[in-house]
């Protein structure tokens, strides 16, 4: 009679398999890192001595302060960029709104370190902008000096997190919220301060804490700008120069994880119990008004200035990839295709590896994401919330920490047929990418699934379809938009990920694009080809994002089953 009982073994087995995968490739490596940080390097006993050493070393104290300073300043500068953009687009009938919404997202399709070198050439001491300023006014501005450079580059790349979240929060405020305040006598700045601002606050904090987390964990940008006295770069430098047994790398990792968790906790607190999405039928979003002509000019000026700055890494990168010599001049001396030729001779392996790794990782993510989403939202398996929680927890693990964890954990595990340690086999890079990007894919899949009404499934079961057949014929086709969004988000961000990859690439032939750009950018001669490779990376990610956006739009038009695309990076 088991055939007709309501107990389903399939999802249970699947849940156990996924749980095991997450345990081996997420929990164990991270636990290992934490454990080593608290272990005496000589005796193996548990101790706090490593942390004492850490805070007794002036370099580490300085790195800690610097990382905190850079992360906080980046949040401030990102906010300064994002606030006016979000406000203009949601408050005014403004032709620039579409421009902001599309161009504003572009920074996310390129990791910050790629543009860092180009930014030096544009904003550095002898860069284009300072040459012009010096020419006209006789002074220069230290945009890129020391930590300033890191802050500028990170802010330009990560401000869309605030823009997206804040715009969404503003759009979710029902017009009646404002109207009722006006009806009771409030207007102008008081209305903004007492109603609009508090209602948009959770969205802003969610975006700001993401920026903090991303900047705090980034290793590529500071290293390329030659800033070593920050935490994440120090972790990498300790492990790569002193070795896998040096405890300082682990101590730093624990601090990185702690701050990531802290940032996520803040964002959780901000959003908890404050589902302020108040839009009801009848008009969503703030009251929009038309701009007077001079206001319009002012708005466009601000928007264009910001967008120029935002696109400067891309512009600089393009110039760098086509320029012959570019030094002490506003623009390159002459233009050439040579860098693309040079790049192509050495880099086709990078491109192939990237497509392979990112494609596999995204595939794993979508399969896992769909399965987890289904298990969590459609079954009653005990512990299903934990599966979701652990998978989402990967957000809090910086790439460098995961990389160190993999090195330490899997170095002794020999893969049978290829006969080398798992830690130096290319597959481990794929696994790292998959784990790192799983939260984004999972969220997209959950969004897709939530738009499939349970009633549609019940209708199929009522007509005789088994659970498995229902999933195959109803659920998966209807959530394909969400799955595709998940795939592309995973793919696009995995294609340009550097921090974990940097730790795990053991042979040049296994290296992906981001690593290749990194290698090129190390030498002055490699900048041109490196920039050319960077342009290729931007194109791959950009095209993938655009295509998926179009496909999703089309499927959404065909049936009103939506998907979340905004989950970039």
């Amino acid at each position: 009679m088991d055939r007709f009982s309501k107990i389903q073994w399939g999802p249970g087995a699947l849940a156990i398999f996924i749980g095991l995968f997450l345990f081996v490739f997420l929990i164990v490596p991270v636990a290992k890192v934490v454990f080593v940080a608290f272990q005496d390097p000589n005796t193996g006993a548990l101790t706090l001595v490593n942390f004492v050493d850490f805070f007794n070393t002036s370099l580490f104290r300085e790195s800690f302060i610097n990382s905190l300073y850079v992360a906080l300043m980046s949040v401030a500068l990102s906010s300064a960029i994002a606030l006016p953009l979000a406000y203009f687009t949601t408050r005014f009938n403004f032709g620039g709104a579409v421009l902001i919404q599309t161009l504003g997202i572009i920074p996310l399709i390129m990791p910050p370190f790629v543009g860092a070198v180009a930014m030096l050439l544009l904003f550095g001491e002898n860069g284009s902008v300072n040459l012009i300023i010096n020419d006209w006014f006789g002074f220069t501005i230290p945009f890129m000096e020391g930590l300033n450079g890191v802050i500028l580059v990170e802010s330009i790349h990560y401000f869309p997190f605030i823009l997206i979240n804040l715009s969404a929060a503003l759009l979710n405020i029902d017009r009646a919220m404002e109207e009722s305040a006006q009806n009771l006598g409030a207007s102008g700045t008081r209305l903004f301060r007492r109603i609009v601002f508090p209602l948009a606050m959770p969205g802003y904090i969610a975006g700001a804490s993401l920026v903090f987390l991303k900047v705090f964990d980034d290793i590529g940008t500071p290293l390329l700008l030659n800033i070593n006295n920050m935490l994440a770069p120090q972790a990498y430098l300790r492990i790569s120069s002193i070795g896998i047994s040096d405890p300082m790398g682990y101590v730093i990792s624990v601090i990185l994880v702690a701050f990531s968790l802290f940032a996520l906790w803040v964002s959780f607190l901000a959003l908890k119990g404050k589902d302020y999405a108040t839009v009801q039928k009848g008009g969503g979003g703030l009251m929009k008004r038309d701009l007077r002509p001079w206001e319009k000019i002012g708005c466009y000026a601000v928007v264009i200035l910001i967008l120029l700055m935002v696109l400067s890494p891309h512009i600089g990168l393009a110039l760098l990839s086509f320029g012959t010599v570019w030094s002490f001049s506003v623009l390159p001396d002459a233009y050439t295709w040579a860098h693309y030729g040079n790049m192509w001779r050495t880099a086709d392996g990078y491109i192939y590896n990237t497509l392979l790794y990112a494609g596999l990782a995204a595939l794993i993510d979508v399969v896992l994401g769909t399965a987890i989403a289904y298990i969590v939202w459609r079954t009653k398996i005990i512990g299903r919330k934990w599966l979701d929680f652990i998978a989402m927890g990967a957000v809090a693990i910086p790439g460098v920490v995961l990389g160190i964890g993999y090195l330490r954990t899997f170095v002794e595990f020999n893969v049978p047929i290829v006969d080398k340690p798992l830690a130096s086999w290319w597959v481990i890079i794929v696994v790292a990418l998959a784990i790192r990007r799983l939260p984004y894919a999972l969220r997209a899949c959950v969004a897709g699934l939530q738009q499939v009404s349970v009633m549609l499934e019940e209708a199929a079961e009522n007509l005789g379809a088994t659970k498995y057949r229902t999933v195959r014929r109803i659920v998966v086709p209807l959530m394909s938009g969400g799955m595709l969004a998940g795939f592309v988000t995973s793919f696009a961000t995995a294609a340009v990920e550097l921090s974990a990859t940097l730790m795990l690439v053991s042979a040049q032939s296994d290296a992906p694009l981001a690593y290749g750009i990194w290698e090129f950018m190390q030498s002055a001669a490699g900048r041109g080809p490196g920039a050319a490779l960077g342009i290729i990376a931007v194109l791959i990610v950009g095209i993938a994002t655009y295509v998926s956006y179009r496909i999703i739009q089309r499927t959404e038009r065909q049936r009103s089953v939506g998907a979340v695309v905004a989950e970039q990076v």
Partner: protein
Amino acid sequence: MTDIRPEAVGVTIEDVSLSFGTTEVLKGITLKIEPGEFFTFLGPSGSGKSTLLRAIAGFGPTPAGRILIGDDDVTHLVPWRRNVGMVFQSYALWPHMTVRKNVAFGLEERKVGAREISSRVDAALDLVGLREFAERRPSQLSGGQQQRVALARTVVVEPRVLLLDEPLSNLDANLRVQMRRDILELQRELKLTTIFVTHDQEEANTTSDRIAVLNDGIIQQVGSPMELYDNPANRFVAYFLGTANLIDGRVEFEATTPVFQADDGTRISLAGRDLPAGAGTAMFRPQDLTICKAGADDAAAGGVVLPGSIRHREFLGSLVRYSVRVGTREILVDDSHHAGGRIFDIGEDVDLHLDVDRVQVLGV
């Protein structure tokens, strides 16, 4: 808080027109709402009733024409200077404030002293019976409670006029009946000029002193609920308030007697009426007919006899509503129901006796 109230004021709407782009939403509305009156804008969705209400509150584009509250022309006044209280369909309670803060908001904007705010907020919450919920957040309240908070938040500022934009549409049926009584009681107690927007004729009939029926941006008729029901000005009003049988045709004269000649040949003599000749629509309610067995010589029923056969039957408790096929049209007839009363079956031939005194002829 009822001791020193300002005198109730009226609202005057003079030739108000309004367009969204090329769509004309209001077409020359003129109305006078008396002080202290409970007045309703009734109409289907898209009729312009909400737009008109919002124009009184100052929301949406500035309309052509004039809007006066009391003697003040407010047509060009910003919403926050009008002192009209509006209760929104979605309640629009601010989720980041407690109930107390929500209710205090308008008083704070009016720079009322802290002690007075506190006592007036308490009084307003007492008025709607939610004093003990003052420290809760709106999300912790039921729909009906949120509605009461929205009301308290509006009346606490002692507005000159109370505007209610479909305030009951988000409540379930039982609560709606309770709530509309409470609103009416509140309005009577505060003697507030109130304008209520709804698409529900029952809500309008049970609460209003007068109703303006709107359709297509035009006022179709203004009057008390009973006037509108008994003497509808046109097909739309007849149809929108209650159930009506409408027969197209024209009024002709046989000597000096007006006769309604229906398009399908039926003739209804309207002796003693003062009617102009020409095209018109005869209107009568389902209760204006008596249903009898076919051929039964029922002298008591009298009137014009319309022979037909039963197509549908709906049992509505106190009455049975028949749909009767008469010639090419269906006529609705109500027959009051008592236990053991005569019930006609589907397909049965019947005679309908129409009381001609109850027939109204509407202009086209």
